């Protein structure tokens, strides 16, 4: 039980990558640091536990990254997925700083590896963590402990007492007991509100009831809500977030990567009425996976069904849930709970519209449909060979983008534009400043790492003054 009568230099709220980067950086700068993590130790690390790589700018090949990935290309990629809903100044700064993040991470014990199998297209742009995000989180916690950072699990911030942009003190819940923490500077790195279904329903309506939360169940957005209620500036649209289509049989929370389904580009995807609703072959999957969560969320009952035949069975990484198989399309439709006639009609129309071509799963192969709405522009080939295989799809929310506004020093801005005197933010809670919509693989960890380090650095500067 720590001595709550003392004053820490820095209080870090949150226990994921951004929080840890901030805490370690502040501690390395000589500050006393308290880090509070709302999850128990076994589930520490927020969504970082489920991550596996960080998109990293580099000018030449590194031990794990091939070729080069320069600022302008990175920025173009971001611009494309966000459709311009980003902040060029903050984004470019983040991109540049990912380059210097690797040595820091390695010094903290984070290890890297070449890109995982099934992700070859990311070997140039994304640095993969050996053992994944939980291994990364473990390395940071070990570093934090070694440096003498005070860490409290099962402890959450309840109320930040803001007074004209100045945090006087923070009320916390420490293993069920109310306490007050005083710190010269506070860093909020407590994530989005994606695990708060009521909040999701405010934004999405009753549809949110059918969303699955891929990551931590502890991201309830309590700190975010507390700050927004106190006149902190906001960025982002509450309906925007990183949402992918995942296996509809995934658990409500914390299903993580194994619930992902990569079969969409080779499928016909129908809604519960057995009708197609989007071009499944628009682009390679790493560039499209992040739009399918929203696409499915907009369908009736927020469900979709990917249907393939045996030809495509082995073209994608397996999901953890067994494929639903049948010898005929009608039988498959019944197994999926769909109207057989509608599915047979949709597939027959699709099959008839497929233009013959040379199918190639590894590139944009131009195998497309003609005269079909919506079209399928690549990997379109008739679904004819049993067994027929189906997977249900649900929107899987990774994190939400509505967040607090920060400046380039990670300092929180009030809604009148005035900077807070001693409140900083890093990670998903402020990611909306840079990611207004869409998602770029490995960019969440980039923002968390870069802004975590900035917040730690600036907090230390602030605390010492």
């Amino acid at each position, binding site marked *: 039980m720590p001595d709550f009568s003392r004053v820490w230099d820095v209080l870090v709220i949150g226990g994921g990558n951004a929080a840890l980067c901030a805490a370690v950086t502040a501690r390395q700068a000589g500050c006393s640091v308290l880090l509070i993590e709302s999850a128990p130790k*076994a*589930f520490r690390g927020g969504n970082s*536990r*489920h*991550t*596996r*790589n960080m998109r990293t700018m580099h000018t030449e090949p590194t031990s794990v990254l091939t070729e080069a990935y320069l600022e302008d290309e990175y920025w173009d990629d971001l611009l494309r997925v966000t459709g311009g809903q980003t902040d060029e100044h903050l984004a470019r700064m983040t991109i540049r700083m990912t380059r210097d993040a690797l040595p820091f991470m390695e010094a903290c014990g984070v*290890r890297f*590896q*070449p890109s*995982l*199998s*099934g*992700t*070859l*297209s*990311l070997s140039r742009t*994304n640095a*993969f*963590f*050996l*053992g*994944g*995000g*939980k*291994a990364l989180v*473990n390395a940071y*916690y*070990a570093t934090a402990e070694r440096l003498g950072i005070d860490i409290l699990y099962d402890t959450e911030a309840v109320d930040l007492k803001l007074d004209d942009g100045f945090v006087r003190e923070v009320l916390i819940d420490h293993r069920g007991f109310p306490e007050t923490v005083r710190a010269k500077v506070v860093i909020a790195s407590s994530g989005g509100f994606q695990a708060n279904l009521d909040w999701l329903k405010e934004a999405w309506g009753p549809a949110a009831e059918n969303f699955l939360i891929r990551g931590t169940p502890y991201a309830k957005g309590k700190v975010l809500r507390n700050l927004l209620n106190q006149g902190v500036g906001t960025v982002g649209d509450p309906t925007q977030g990183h949402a*992918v289509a995942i296996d509809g049989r995934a*658990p409500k929370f*914390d299903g*993580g*990567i*194994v619930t*992902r389904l*990569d079969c969409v*580009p080779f499928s016909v995807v129908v809604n519960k009425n057995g009708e197609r609703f989007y071009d499944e072959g628009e682009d*390679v*999957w*790493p560039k499209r*996976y*992040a739009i399918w969560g929203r696409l499915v969320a907009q369908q009736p009952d927020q469900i979709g069904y990917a249907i393939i035949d045996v030809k495509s069975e*082995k*073209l*994608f*990484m*397996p*999901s*953890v849930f067994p494929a639903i198989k049948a010898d005929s399309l009608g039988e498959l439709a019944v197994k999926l709970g769909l109207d057989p006639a509608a599915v047979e009609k949709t597939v027959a129309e699709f099959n008839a519209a497929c233009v013959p071509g040379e199918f190639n*799963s*590894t590139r944009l192969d131009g195998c497309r449909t003609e005269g079909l709405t919506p079209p399928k522009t690549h990997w379109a080939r008739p679904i004819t060979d049993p067994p027929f295989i189906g997977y249900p799809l649900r929107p899987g929310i990774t994190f939400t983008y509505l967040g607090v506004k920060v400046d380039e020093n990670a300092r929180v801005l009030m809604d009148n534009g005035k900077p807070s005197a001693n409140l900083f933010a890093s990670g998903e809670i402020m990611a909306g400043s840079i990611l207004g919509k869409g998602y770029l*693989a*490995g960019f969440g960890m980039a923002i968390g790492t870069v802004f975590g380090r900035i917040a730690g650095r600036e907090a230390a500067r602030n605390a010492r003054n």
Partner: protein
Amino acid sequence: MRETEATTDARRAMEVCNACRYCEGFCAVFPAMTMRREFSTGDLSYIANLCHNCKGCYYACQYAPPHPFNINVPQVLAQVRAETYEEYAWPGPLAGLFKRNGTVVSLATAGVIALTLLMTMALVDPSVLYQPQIGPGAFYRVIPWWLMVTLAGGTSLFALVALAMGFRNFWRDTGGRADELQRAKPLAVALHDILTLKNLGGGGGGCNDKDEAFSQLRRRFHHFMFYGFMLCFASTTTATFYDHIMGHPAPYPFWSLPVQLGTWGGVGMVIGTAGLIWVKIVSDPAPAARNLLGADYALLVLLFLSAFTGLLLLAFRSTGAMGVMLAVHLGVIFALFLLVPYSKMVHAVYRSAALLRHALERHPTPPPGNKPSDRALGSAA
């Protein structure tokens, strides 16, 4: 291999792992896993024996308990591994010795030591047994040459045959062919992996013993034990050569080759086995298969005793205690020889075989045909 609760659990774990693959950089288990989509019991046997039990994947696992998926790869593979020892044991009726193997090994060791002592006393004049014996052939005055050769030769030959049959059973069950065993490159790769314990300590950081922290202790202790064992083996071989070919029977002077090899080998084994026992005691029990600890401890203690009694014999060989020391030491060694095919010692055979199978998989002879690729279009994060 038969289907059991452990293989069912292991298959479920592998299916979750195969959809995740975050541990791919850790050790050979995961690349071997990604080469498969379905897991026959033979596949699981192969994968279970590839696992060096470093536990890195447990601490890195986002699905480890208390997550409801409850993935505990080191534990479930250890369970399967133990079953494979039983499955491939030769002759078949002795497979039951792998049930409660800790008890079996302990009792057998105690029994063989007692029997050796009793036989020595029955065969040898007590005045010889308790008198200092020195000079060439001193040991044979305590335990007659014919008895020593019969017991040592008989038990070690039997052990070799039993291990070879076990290897054959494993190789067949995991889909291996005899002709594969002649390919030099995979053999060299496997030998390198065996001698360096490359896969012990996923990704090079070492094992997770107590918690998330990595440590090279297990690797070092195992090296002490393994290379110590090898030195002792070299010592025995040299001594056999001296005795039977050059007609120069033991004991040999301290600075002679056999004694030097045996002494340093013995010291290595004592350090290694004691260290491994200590690591096991302080280890986090969560990723361990608790019902198998008995077998682990029993073999470590047996190996410790074989080295320690050897060193004691060396220390007291010119005193009246030599006779009893020799009988005890040889009793332990006979027990070890007898138990090699029916103790955790068999892991050496099956793990080596699994590493060879892995090396063969990674260096296939024919160009990989039209095997469908998982690498086509993966997802992002």
